[in-house]
């Protein structure tokens, strides 16, 4: 199997890694960079829990060979907010008790954050569409949508 030297910028930090042709970005993030907030659900692009943001777009990291992410900017949940300063979406999700089992939550937060990065005042329908690639089997989505809506409004007030 051919090996390739790739540079990835993950959560603002550059990494140079040697990867195999078929190595998934999901595995590189989880196993090589120890970013366990990236979850594996189905591994076939159906559930979206392995969502990351690549160059401002949502992607299922199970569907991306790591070589294809070469020289790109990747954001995982570890790169969103901090314990001291949560991202508005994270803050609103806590307020609404929007997480139950929590397995899909990193992906939902990333989908919500990415939406607000591109569209600061989304409609309820736009929020539904933005998170539609992530399956949640606990919440029924209602609180997730409410939380992202509130995060948008909170950000709007702060200007």
């Amino acid at each position, binding site marked *: 199997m051919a090996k390739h030297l790739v540079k990835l910028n993950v959560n603002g930090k550059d990494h140079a890694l040697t990867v195999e042709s078929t190595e998934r970005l999901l595995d590189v993030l989880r196993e090589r960079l120890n970013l366990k907030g990236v979850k594996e659900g189905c591994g076939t*692009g*159906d559930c*979206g829990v392995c969502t990351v943001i690549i160059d401002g777009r*949502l*992607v*299922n990291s199970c*569907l991306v060979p790591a070589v294809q992410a070469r020289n790109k900017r990747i954001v995982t949940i570890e790169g969103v907010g901090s314990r001291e300063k949560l991202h508005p979406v994270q803050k609103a999700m806590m307020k609404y008790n929007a997480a139950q089992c929590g397995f899909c939550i990193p992906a939902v937060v990333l989908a919500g954050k990415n939406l607000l990065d591109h569209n600061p005042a989304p409609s309820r329908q736009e929020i539904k569409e933005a998170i*539609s690639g992530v*399956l949640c089997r606990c919440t029924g989505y209602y609180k997730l949508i409410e939380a992202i809506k509130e995060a948008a409004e909170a950000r709007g007030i702060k200007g």
Partner: protein
Amino acid sequence: MDLSGLSELRYIKQEEGKVRIGALTTIADLEEQKNNTVWGGVLNDVTAKFGSPNIRTVATVGGNICSAASSEDLIPVFLTLDAKVRAIRKSAAREMALREFLVAKRKTALHSGEILAEVSFSEPSARAASAFQKLGMRNTLIISFVSVATFLEADEARSKIKCARIALNRLSGKIPQRAEGVERELLGQNLDEQTINKSSELLGNELSLTSDTRASADYRCEAAKVLLRRALVQCHDRIIGK
């Protein structure tokens, strides 16, 4: 082999009455082209229902076409736009109708060493309209029970049908196909509700669908008729400017 870095195969061009889309154009690229043309409208219909935003980032036009299966939403749309595909290899290129490119389920006319480079079609006239309808268990991340694409062109008075193309994700085989019987019946007919309802009934004669884990043949057949009617109504409304 990874083709994803070939940015020269990632484009949407409109020139000299032709629309050309590079095989590596992503579904997200199509989604963003937001133009008000006949073809732009139907591509908006299909991209909104395609996979999920996450999938649309990486899925490509070429990938969808080369998968050659009834689950590929772009194929019926391109069939109704009477699209051609361009296959290239090291020293040569050839063009053929998309209908001929799709040989069987998961089988295309590509030779070894050849790749799909482009899909193209003539820019539809201002008196034409195109639509896409899809039905599945949910809106996102779903393989449809049935999907229908339609293309209608009206005469100058916008009262009679001059050209009709209809494609379903399945008709009698396992790949998307044109419903030529219904197309012939529509030619020269009045562009009105009566014609649309009749064509929807006629579709039943051409369908030979099978049951599987997603839906029964009977349900698929009924759904196909309803979706055809909806898509034709959309075309009608778009043509008369409703």
